C-alpha cells in the first residue's frame, strides 16, 4: 500500500493506492495546510478501513512551491517513513506535473509572486531543462496543466530505490535572501 502526499501549493492532495484501487482526497487551503493535511490522511485510512501498518511506501512532493507547505508534507512523510520503517521517495512538484501529463517535449511552470519555477521533459520523460527559478519564462515548449495523476507518478517512481527518511529534504530550488548575502 502506497501513501502519496502533496502540500506544495494551495491544493492539498493525499492518496492511498491499495492493490489496484486509488483513494484520493484533495482540499483547497491557502494558509491552513497544518489543519487539513494530517486529518485528510487519517480519513483516507479510516473511511476505507485500511491500516497504516500495511503501508510499505510513501511518495511525497518535496517542492518547489510554498516553503511552509512543503515542510508540512515532508515532516509528516519522513516521520511516518522513519516510524514505520518503510520506503520513501520524493518527487519534485514540477516533475510530478510533467509525469502526470505525458506527451512530447513539454514544460511545467509554477508561478510565485516574483517569478517562475520551470522544468521540461521530452516524450520519454527525460529531463531536457533542469529545474530552475527565473523572473522570466523563456522556455519555448508547450506548458502542461498543473494537475496530478497519482497513478502515473507511482508508476514513474516504481523502480526508484528508497531514500533514507533521515535525509529526505525539501527541494526549494530558490535561494533565500540571507543566502544571497553570504
Amino acid at each position, binding site marked *: 500500500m502506497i501513501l502519496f502526499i502533496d502540500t506544495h501549493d494551495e491544493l492539498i492532495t493525499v492518496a492511498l493506492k491499495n492493490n489496484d484501487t486509488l483513494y484520493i482526497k484533495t482540499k483547497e487551503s491557502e494558509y*491552513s495546510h*497544518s*489543519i*487539513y*493535511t*494530517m*486529518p485528510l*490522511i*487519517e480519513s483516507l485510512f479510516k473511511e476505507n478501513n485500511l491500516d*497504516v501498518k500495511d503501508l510499505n511506501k510513501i511518495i511525497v512532493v518535496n517542492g518547489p512551491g510554498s*516553503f*511552509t507547505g512543503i*515542510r*508540512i508534507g*515532508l*515532516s*509528516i512523510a*519522513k*516521520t*511516518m517513513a*522513519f*516510524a*514505520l520503517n518503510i520506503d520513501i521517495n520524493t518527487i519534485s512538484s514540477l516533475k510530478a506535473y510533467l509525469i502526470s501529463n505525458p506527451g512530447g517535449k513539454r514544460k511545467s511552470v509554477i508561478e510565485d509572486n516574483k517569478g517562475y519555477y520551470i522544468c521540461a521533459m521530452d516524450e520519454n520523460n527525460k529531463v531536457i531543462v533542469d529545474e530552475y527559478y527565473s523572473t522570466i519564462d523563456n522556455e519555448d515548449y508547450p506548458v502542461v496543466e498543473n494537475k496530478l495523476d497519482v497513478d502515473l507518478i507511482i508508476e514513474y517512481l516504481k523502480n526508484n530505490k528508497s531514500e533514507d*527518511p*533521515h535525509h529526505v*529534504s*525539501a527541494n*526549494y530550488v530558490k535561494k*533565500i535572501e*540571507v543566502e544571497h548575502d*553570504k
Partner: protein
Amino acid sequence: MKDVYILAVESSCDETSVSIIKNGYEDVATIINSQIDVHTKYGGVVPEVASRLHLENITMVINECLEKANMSLSDMDAFACTYAPGLLGSLLVGVEATKALSFIYNKPLIATNHMMGHIYANMIGNKLSYPLISLIVSGGHTDLILMESEDSFKYLGSTLDDAIGEAYDKVARILDLPYPGGPNVEKYAQSGKPTYKMPQIMNDESFNFSFSGIKSHCNNLVHNEHQRGHEINKNDLACSFQNCVTSHLVDKTKKALLQYNIKTFLLSGGVAANSFIRNSLKDMCDEIGVEMHMPEKKYCTDNAAMIGAAAYVLYKHKKFSDLSINAQSHITLND
C-alpha cells in the same frame, strides 16, 4: 499506577529537541540539537533557516533520543509537541511530526504551550506546592504569574515593551558583542563594576515590567561617549545594565510575593540561566522566607524535557488535541 512515558518534541525557535519523560518528572533521555552555530553567522535567528534545519534534523533527533533511552516509539503513552508560541515555520515541523506519530501509534496528541513548558521545567526531578508565583524570563517574555494550582495561570504583570532577554540581546548589539548576546553580556558583566548611572525603571504599583527605556539609555550613553571621543568600558556598562534590570525583576517579584502572601517562587525561561539573576532572586527569597525553585541551567533554555513535563499535567487532565491542531505564533497560557 502504571508509569506514563511521553515523547515530547520542541521546535519553537532554533533548537530541535526531543525528550522522553517518565511520569512528568523523570528525564529518561533528552537530545537538543542547537542551530546556534548557523545563526551566529547571521547575528541572530533567521526564521526560514531555522525551519529548514528543523526539517532536516527532526527524525534523526527523535531516533537519537529513542536510542539514548533504549526505548521504542511503541513504548510511549502519548506524543507531545510545542504548538505555540514561537516561529510558525519552526513550530510546524515538530507539530506535524508529532501528529504523524500520534496517528501511527494511536496514542494521544498533546499540544503544549511553550511557556507552560518553561514553568514546568521546575517539575523535572522536583515536587511543587501551590499556590506559587512564577516569573518567566526569556527572549520573548517577562511574565509574573500566580498559580493557585498546576493548571491555573493568572497573569499579575508582563513587560509593556521589550522582554528582558530581548533587552540583553539589544544591549549586546550596542556593545558590539557577538550572538548570542544575552550570555555574552552576562560574561562581560562578571568582570565589570556598576559605574555607569542607570535610570530608575518604572517604580510603580503595578507588576508590569519595562525594558525599552534602559536599552535606549545604554544606546545614548554609548553614542555620547563616542562623540566625546571616550572609550566605553564594556564590562562596566554590561554590569551596570545587568544590575539595573535585575533589581527591577527583584523589586517587582518581591512586591508580588508579599502582596499575595505567597511562600513558593518559581523562576523559569531562557534568561533564568543567568547566574546573577538567579542569585539575586534567591537572596531576596531567603530574606523574606520564600522557597525558591529554579530549573537546572540545562532546562532553562529551550528543551523538550520541559515540554514533556508540562504535557504530563495536560495528560492527567486529559487535555488532548486532535490532528487538526495548528501552530500559533502568539498565545497566552490561558488561550
